[in-house]
């Protein structure tokens, strides 16, 4: 079985219609396998992306492009448990995750 979510890039197009991620520090809750994380990080200054699903985060880490390795930090964590400094980010992105 093969499955491909959003091959037409509808989510990413919607994000770009509303936001220019250039230079932003982004917190992404519910990153899954990094489907949105990587293209966001291509413009952003830094992305802390996390998800409680360890398998998904492992796939995201395995697929992390080397040129973005210093801009993306993947973590296995829930939105309740993760420790984040107050006011440390310019933008929080919730991907079906609240």
């Amino acid at each position, binding site marked *: 079985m093969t499955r491909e979510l959003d091959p037409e890039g509808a989510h990413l*197009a919607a994000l770009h219609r509303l936001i220019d991620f250039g230079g932003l520090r982004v917190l992404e809750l519910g990153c899954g396998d990094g489907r949105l994380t990587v293209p966001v990080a291509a413009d952003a200054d830094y992305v802390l992306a996390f998800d409680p699903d360890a398998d998904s985060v492992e796939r995201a880490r395995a697929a992390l492009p080397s040129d973005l390795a210093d801009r993306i930090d993947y973590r296995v964590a829930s939105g309740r448990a993760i420790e984040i400094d107050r006011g440390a*980010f*310019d933008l929080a992105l919730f991907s079906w995750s609240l």
Partner: protein
Amino acid sequence: MHVLRHMVDAVRPGGLVLDLQVIRPNPVIETGGVALCEIDGEPLFRNADAATAAIDACIRGGQLREEAVDDHDVPKHYSSAAADVDRYADDDRRLPDEAVERLRAMTAPCAVRERCRLRKLRLVPFLTQAT
């Protein structure tokens, strides 16, 4: 909602929150551009409704201000309708019983198209004391 409050605290005053949720109507299974059936999306809509209510409460409370909304369709492509049926076997959402056997018999690729809403919200900066 504790998670929302925790995440919003991580954003600087004047920063942004983007919330992506599924919205009604029900997702539709299509093949070759023809709609085959709807999926009962209510289990997911209930979660989305709760998240939306939490954000709306922050708006009413003056912590967030909505700046833009973008509704868009998102497809998921499957190699066959049968593969799609298998995917929903362990999903909160339900395929109609009368459609399951018909879908299982189909070998053609199919897509599930669902409606999503992206909301752009800004953290209202704390009021500074006037001098």
